[in-house]
């Protein structure tokens, strides 16, 4: 649905003397109907990336396709028409303070030339869709952050876009509101088949609603894939962010430190007692977590193995198809 191909954005400063690549050769495919997250620190280039998708910023080179339209090749009226088919929501909601919630939602409909009567009907529909029935007459200043973002979502969806871009849409919200907004987005994604591309610096957002994720660092994608799969790889960026690490723990002489990753079924096995019973090993648990990521149970366990049979125990992990890493 969204195809980003070899995208570069080079900023020059001091009359071309200095150059900095905000986007350094990015290629991503967002499939129709999925929630795709781009995770990165501030300054990683994710903001520039999402703005290139609807050409709020022009990439230096490379192309962006949405559906079968090459957005980066468009300009003028054709670009504006294309933008009407791409919804966007923002960290600071960006609602017009001089308009009520309903008038804000009607804004894109005005641009599309809806009649007053059709606008009113569509706005009512959208208010209901985002759970703001009866709040249409409130001004943004009278709404909470979560409600403002709901207005933002309704506004973005007014023209029935196939794609929704979310620019740090929950970063200004408290954890509970963040959850409810993410639930709403997830729900819209499932019910309407809406394709969502979101950028965030919060792992929690990726964990809660993303099907796939790309990690952005200094303008480059350093990791991408299905969230639950990445979480189940002990050495992935996602797993390191998601699970507590060894914090410099050093195994005692004669013992080894092993990180074991679980996913789905294997998370429910009595692994530790299994190891202790089958082999002559002592298992010392350093730390461990099991979490639900992308609807799957994923976990990571750091254990210290010692005793005579350590190598057979490690072979056993291999046979059991448990991803693990010996430190």
């Amino acid at each position, binding site marked *: 649905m969204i195809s980003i191909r070899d995208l570069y954005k080079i900023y020059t400063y001091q009359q071309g003397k200095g150059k900095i690549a905000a986007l350094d050769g990015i290629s991503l495919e967002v499939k129709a109907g999925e929630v795709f997250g781009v995770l990165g620190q501030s300054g990683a280039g994710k903001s520039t990336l999402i703005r290139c998708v609807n050409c709020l910023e022009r990439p230096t080179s490379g192309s962006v396709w949405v559906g079968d339209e090459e957005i980066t090749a468009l300009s003028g*009226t054709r670009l504006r028409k294309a933008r009407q088919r791409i919804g966007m929501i*923002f960290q600071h909601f*960006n609602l017009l303070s001089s308009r009520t919630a309903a008038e804000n939602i009607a*804004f894109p409909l005005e*641009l599309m030339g809806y009649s007053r009567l059709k606008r009113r009907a569509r706005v009512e529909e959208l208010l209901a869709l985002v759970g703001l029935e009866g709040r249409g007459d409130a001004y943004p*200043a009278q709404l909470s952050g979560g409600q403002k973002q709901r207005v933002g979502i309704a506004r973005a969806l007014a023209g029935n876009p196939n794609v929704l871009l979310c620019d740090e849409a929950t970063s200004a919200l408290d954890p509970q509101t963040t959850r409810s907004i993410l639930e709403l987005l997830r729900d819209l994604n499932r019910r309407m088949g809406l394709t969502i591309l979101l950028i965030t610096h919060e792992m929690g957002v990726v964990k809660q609603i993303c099907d796939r994720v790309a990690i952005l660092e200094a303008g480059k994608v350093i990791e991408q894939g299905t969230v639950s799969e990445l979480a189940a790889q002990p050495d992935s960026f996602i797993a390191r962010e998601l699970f507590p690490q060894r914090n410099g723990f050093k195994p005692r002489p004669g013992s080894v430190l092993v990180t074991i990753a679980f996913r789905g079924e294997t998370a429910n096995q009595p692994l530790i007692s299994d190891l202790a019973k089958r082999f002559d090993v002592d298992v010392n648990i350093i730390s461990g977590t099991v979490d639900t990521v992308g609807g799957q149970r994923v976990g990571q366990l750091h254990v210290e193995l010692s005793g005579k049979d350590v190598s057979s125990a490690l072979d056993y992990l291999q046979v059991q198809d448990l991803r693990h890493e010996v430190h």
Partner: protein
Amino acid sequence: MLDPVLMESLWQATVETFYMVGISALLAVLFGLPLGLLLVITAPNHILPNSAIQKVLGSIVNVGRSIPFIILLVAIIPFTRLVVGTTIGSTAALVPLTIAAIPFFARVAETALLEVDRGLIEAAQSMGCNHWQIVLKVLVPEALPSLILGITIMVISLLSYSAMAGVVGGGGLGDLAIRYGYQRFDTTVMVVTVVLLIILVQIAQYVGDRLAIRLRKR
């Protein structure tokens, strides 16, 4: 208390003041607002960045703002004759008042329009707005409360400018104060006109403030 002749001239002066300030304020908004809009949208990183236009317009506005009003009043007499066909009276005073007020309001409008959050413009662009729609549906409505306050400031400045209109026989309250109150040492006229001016300023400020508060939904 006041004799009928004085009452008569006070009334006439008040009407003249209203006429000069009202019309010139209206014209200043009509021409100054587009000028302020151009100054804003041609700035770097705005919707129509164009540093050449921005610099030229900025310089013109600065020149307009640096000429002392009393000098402008006299200097543009030929132009005034060309525009309104006369060089004396309230109508003649209108021309320099308007000329002085346009760059003043352009700057005031620029400041008000710059306050509009860049995020709103970005959101409008993401919805497919063209430049006109951004100006008419986002910039002006969002800046309206500040623009109203700016108009208030301008109206009050015009009230004091209009006092100098006497130089071209423009009349008005300020002129009355100077001619009767100051030059003829008529304390009563002086005090009455100044009090009237104070009341007018208070009313203008009050109306402007109330309107801005009503419009500001933040």
